[in-house]
């Protein structure tokens, strides 16, 4: 097996895209998708300038740029975590109507069990919504093979193709065998204006075209190498339909317990109707295993409930969270019982924490002290390392909803009369989705204090470049925040008293103020110093 390479699932996606003649990747960091783009950034292809790979400001700008590269005839990829697709949804849904020129593969990494996320939404819903094909590989080799299929299929159907992975596949290593590389496409822009200008007259025709494509998409699923049936040796009255990664847990259980059960593995959507209905018709009971929401289990049951189908909806499998081999063992071998060792009560939880030496710590110390002087103590926070200010000893924040929501929720609460109305947002989250909210606050003269906790990086996901390092004050001024109320502080213990006064002064200002708390992330600072040392 010397020709094998050991890679994380996310890196497999990246390696495959490079081998498939990729010309550019566009992405905003987000667990569990970050490593795809990082792998490409570190590749020879990107370092030599043949593949474009820098970070985008957010998922919407990333998606649109990938669409533009496709328009120009080249192969492009856009990567994001599941909630990133909410940000990119406008571009995404409409790109199904325009269609594409060069292959456009949309890789979305879902996070069932919410290891690093606010929800566990299932991207397969989005694929149905947009009426686009989706591939859901069950292992690393299939992820590699899916990518080549996806680029080719995107070009033959002139549609974007989704590839859905989840945390477990993205962050699990295995070996893969690569295929010979494809040559990147030449520059060959699309000249069909009627396809790309979505005026109503064009949009209606394009939408009809998307509907007319659907039989072709289901036919491809019927023939797909990624959908297949494994028959049992003897006739069975129970069958299993296993989607994507769930297939692994089904097969793990079947092989460990030497079960004789037929399995329909599905990894290519829209579902192949003939294959699925032919399979389901043979059994009295069908266990449906989906890594994500019970989307297809619900469809199979129908509104009036075909009770042959068992899965997440009837308690055969857990309703929420990622599947495990243990959940499948319980579903397929309910009579099996094994006594497990217990975790002794002496074991305490060990939640994540802000690093020692992190500037967010000193900011929260100062903020808590000033907030304690007010009757109303509400801090609207955002998505990033500083969300850990929610935990003891800080207990410093009251909300964390979606990227940028700190600014606009503080604004709405200020409009309602809450004082002080304080937002805490990181530098990268601010450039991702905070700027437009700040413009709303300026236009409305809302009495808010926006604290940008600026560590010059996208820290939570591992220290990727932040979009506007050292330009945040200029951006705020440009939007119209008064220069006198754009304050800068350095969150260090030695500045504590000075920082208290700055916070207090701006909380008392009855208009928009921005406080930029600047201190380099301790993790990126360490890496920077160690690489400077080597030089």
């Amino acid at each position, binding site marked *: *097996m010397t020709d*094998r390479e*050991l890679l*994380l699932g996310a890196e497999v996606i990246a390696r495959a895209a490079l081998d498939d003649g990729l010309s550019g990747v566009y992405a905003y960091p987000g*667990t*569990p998708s*970050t*490593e795809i783009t990082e792998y490409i950034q570190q590749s020879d292809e990107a370092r030599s300038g043949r593949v474009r790979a820098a970070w985008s400001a957010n998922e919407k700008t990333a998606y649109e740029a990938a669409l533009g590269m496709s328009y120009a005839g080249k192969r492009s990829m856009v990567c994001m975590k599941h909630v990133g697709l909410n940000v990119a949804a406008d571009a995404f849904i409409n790109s199904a109507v325009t269609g594409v020129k060069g292959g456009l593969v949309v890789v979305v990494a879902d996070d069932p069990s919410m*290891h*690093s996320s606010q929800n566990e939404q299932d991207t397969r819903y989005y694929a149905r919504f947009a009426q686009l094909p989706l591939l859901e590989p069950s292992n690393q080799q299939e992820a590699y093979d899916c990518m080549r299929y996806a680029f080719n299929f995107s070009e033959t159907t002139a549609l974007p193709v989704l590839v859905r992975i989840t945390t*477990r*596949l993205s*962050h*699990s*290593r*295995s*070996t893969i065998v690569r295929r010979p590389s494809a040559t990147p496409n030449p520059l060959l822009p699309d000249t069909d204006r009627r396809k790309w200008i979505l005026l109503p007259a064009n949009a209606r025709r394009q939408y009809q075209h998307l509907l007319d494509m659907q039989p072709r998409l289901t036919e491809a699923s019927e023939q797909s190498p990624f959908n297949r049936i494994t028959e049992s040796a003897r006739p069975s009255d129970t069958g299993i339909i296993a989607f994507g990664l769930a*297939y*692994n*847990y089904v*097969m*793990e259980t079947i*092989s*460990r317990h030497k079960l004789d059960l037929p399995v329909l593995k599905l990894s290519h959507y829209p579902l192949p109707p003939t294959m699925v209905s032919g399979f389901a018709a043979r059994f009295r009971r069908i266990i449906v295993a989906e890594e994500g929401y019970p989307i297809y289990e619900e469809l199979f049951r129908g509104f009036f409930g075909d009770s042959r189908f068992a899965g997440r909806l009837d308690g055969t499998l857990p309703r929420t969270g990622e599947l*495990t*081999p*243990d959940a499948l*063992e319980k579903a397929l071998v309910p009579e099996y019982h*094994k006594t*497990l*060792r*217990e*975790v*002794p009560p*002496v*074991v*305490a*939880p*060990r*939640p*994540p*924490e*802000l*690093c020692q030496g992190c500037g967010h710590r000193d900011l929260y110390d100062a903020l808590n002290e000033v907030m304690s002087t007010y009757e109303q103590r509400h801090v609207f926070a955002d998505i990033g*390392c500083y969300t*850990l200010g929610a935990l003891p000893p800080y207990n410093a924040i009251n909300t964390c909803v979606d990227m940028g929501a700190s600014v606009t929720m503080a604004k709405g609460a200020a409009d309602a009369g809450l004082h002080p109305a304080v937002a805490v947002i990181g530098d990268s989250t601010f450039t991702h989705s905070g700027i437009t909210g700040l413009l709303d606050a300026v236009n409305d003269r809302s009495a808010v204090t926006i604290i940008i906790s600026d560590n010059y990086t996208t820290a*939570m*996901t*591992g220290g990727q470049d932040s979009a506007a390092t050292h330009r945040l004050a200029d951006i705020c001024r440009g939007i119209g925040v008064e220069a006198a109320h754009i304050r800068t502080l350095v969150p260090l213990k030695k500045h504590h008293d000075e920082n208290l006064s700055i916070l207090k002064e701006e909380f008392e200002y009855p208009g928009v103020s921005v406080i930029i708390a600047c201190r380099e992330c301790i993790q990126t600072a360490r890496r920077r110093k160690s690489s400077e040392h080597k030089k």
Partner: protein
Amino acid sequence: MKKNILIAGVGGQGILTIASIIDHAAMQQGLYLKQAEVHGMSQRGGAVQSHLRISDTEIFSDLIPLGEADLIISLEPMEALRYLPYLSDEGMLITATRPFVNIDPYPDLEALLDEIKLRCRQHLLVEADRLALEAGNPKAANVVMAGAAARYIGIDRQQLGASLTSLFEAKGKTITESNARAFAMGIAITTDH
């Protein structure tokens, strides 16, 4: 041949280095392997673990089923206990004894070690920090642990040692040699055992 190995610790302690030594060795032996790891929020000083499975036949699940781990290697005594439901009846637990204290209160160390002795017939307590220091590389406690676990991994020790060398070659002679000493000191524990 089939081994399920769970490696546990606190974010930043170096469990992925242990995993990559075993990964490399397994690949050299032509074995199938899957290795699930934790990225993202928990890496910030939280409890982290890696499920590593090696086999001479195809592996399906990236996760080890409960009660099926042949070996737990932990870089920290409390983290060793956190994953006990994964350990099989005959499973071996090997842990470093020095606590990583970033929670308050941290449990009594003697109570943790007593639980390990009580609940795991097969266990090995390793003063990995002290041995790493003796080996001349205070950062190599994880390499000591890899050495201490070597005879239970199911891969030839020479291969594991060679994999360690090839992974650290780029870091220069000093680190490679001190790692080799740390690994040998880990191995020595079980040969005397």
